[in-house]
């Protein structure tokens, strides 16, 4: 775990050009372009967790998709371990092979017609991987145990598992290829709070054990506080503030971050003082 940047994002910009409809064409008009991500720069140190927070439409998922190489940036550079993720040569240099994604919805991110063994084993049988069937199954069994499931679960289908167990399967798939950079897009927002705690603890354990670097996308500031070393706050496509987690959450300097933190309903509010009614009066 060194302090050198592992992922580096600089000047990342994404402009979407809305479709030109027929009436617009007839009138000779162009729809205004939409800047979803505007000159965003940040770095992630190896073995740490960087969380991007913001409300819906702030551009966090667009950034995640560009970092994953699923969407081409309009401008800007992304590199992982010094190798470019986008542009010419990105396919060959292996930067993308080091990254994996864990998505929000464990119900739609796993192929319902595949057994768990195949879901987790598939990336192990990709190009450059020379593993036999038996060897693959053994690795899958170890991965299942590592995420808190049983090797025998591999013969079952996704629908036979609860939401939390499915997210464990998705995590096992992400670490199967020994990827060391995991993009987590709202990985626990579809889960119940007691199950969320299990998954977050598992993710932290795996990070310690395997030295993983997490790029964590979330709207939940409390979850981010538990997971992140550093936080970037995104508003309307711009990074308004970024820095160490404790600093951002305890002493935010930007007004947007302050309002975001103040808006979170917490149980601690009750523990501190009976202020919730006052807050309510002030809100009217």
């Amino acid at each position, binding site marked *: 775990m060194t302090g050198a940047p592992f992922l580096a994002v600089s000047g990342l910009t994404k402009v979407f050009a809305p479709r030109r409809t027929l009436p617009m064409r007839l009138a000779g008009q162009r729809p205004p372009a939409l800047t979803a991500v505007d000159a965003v720069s940040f770095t992630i140190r190896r073995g740490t967790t960087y969380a991007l927070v913001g*409300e*819906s439409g702030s551009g966090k998922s667009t950034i995640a998709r560009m970092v994953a190489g699923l969407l081409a940036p309009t401008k800007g550079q992304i590199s992982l371990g010094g190798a470019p993720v986008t542009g010419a040569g990105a396919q060959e240099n292996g930067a993308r092979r080091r990254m994996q994604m864990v998505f929000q919805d464990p119900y739609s991110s796993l192929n319902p017609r595949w057994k768990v063994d195949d879901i987790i084993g598939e990336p192990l049988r990709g190009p450059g991987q020379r593993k036999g069937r038996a060897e693959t199954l053994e690795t899958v069994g170890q991965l299942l145990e590592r995420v808190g499931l049983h090797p025998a679960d591999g013969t079952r289908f996704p629908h036979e598992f*609860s*939401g*939390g167990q499915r997210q464990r399967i998705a995590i096992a798939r992400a670490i199967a290829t020994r990827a060391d950079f995991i993009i987590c897009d709202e990985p626990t927002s579809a889960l*119940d*709070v*007691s*199950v*969320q*705690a*299990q998954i*977050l*603890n598992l993710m*932290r354990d795996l990070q310690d054990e395997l030295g993983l670097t997490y790029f964590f996308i979330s*709207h*939940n*500031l*409390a*979850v981010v*506080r*538990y997971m992140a070393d550093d936080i970037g706050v995104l508003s309307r496509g711009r990074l308004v503030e970024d820095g160490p*987690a*404790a600093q951002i*959450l305890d002493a935010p300097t930007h007004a947007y971050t302050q*309002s*975001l*933190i*103040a*808006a*979170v*309903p*917490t*149980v*601690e*509010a*009750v*523990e501190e*003082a*009976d*202020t*919730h*009614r*006052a*807050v*309510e*009066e*002030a*809100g*009217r």
Partner: protein
Amino acid sequence: MISPSDSAAAPFDSPAAPPVLGVRDLSVTFTTRRGALTALDRVSFEIARGEVLGVVGESGAGKSVTGAAVIGLLAGGGRVTGGEIRLSGSRIDNLNARQMRPIRGRRIGMVFQDPSVSLDPLLTIGDQLIETIRTHLNLDAAGARRRAVALLEETGIPDAAGRLASFPHEFSGGMRQRVVIALALAGEPELIIADEPTTALDVSVQAQILDLLSGLCRERRTALMLITHDMGVIARMADRVAVMYAGRVVETGPVDEVVRRPRHPYAKGLMAAIPPLSHRPERLVSIPGAMPRLSAIPAGCAFHPRCAAAVAPCSVTRPASVADGAVRVACHLYGGAS
């Protein structure tokens, strides 16, 4: 909008009159191809006038079924198989669909998670509000229109009169939920049932909607049953809370009591599993396992297989609800066997 400044606690009635909502030993069964499933098992709670009761629990706990049973909208073969529901003293669980219709909307308002469920996409906001007002209140068209504008103004819709002609899709998610709240208030109900009213919204909009809803209810002294999975929302909004697990109420009490000192091991686990915003704990406490399926509710206390504090009777007898200070808890550790 949000500034935790000086406090002014809103007083509410001493509960001498019958509660606005009294639910007693309510059981609900769903008939499925695989047999009868008990979704609610002897659920009891009360909501007084002007009071906000938070109903909290994880998926499958039965909180939404409880709300649906109260408004007589149990779907998919669900029916009340025991207990009673009283609205301001009179029973409503044994009414037929025709008798229930004037109660729903008029005496019980509803706010659901997804505003597009409550709004007809093909009718303007004005049409929907005016129709609802005229159904429930004895007003002429002009009076109903004035009342619709007033309601929209109260729920914070700018240019209310001008927005009557707008369709639901022309509003943002937060604004749409304001319209839904206006609709829920249109019949001047005694009780509002809000099922995850802000779960689909961003956190800053959520805070506004929660404050609006509880403010309007307190002003009108409307009882509010707030169903949510988010303990933070309960802590901010509710006076009292009922914690549900596997179709049962395991703990009820004043919100600060339950938050500060939960009694039931499940309530303790639930509180400990919430990541705090103010600091980073070494580790989150998680409850092992998951909520049981309705087809396999454990005998005795439904929580006992996941409970670290379980004792011998827990797997045999279901604990009765007993008082511990201002809190009622259904757990053998608190003498629930008596």
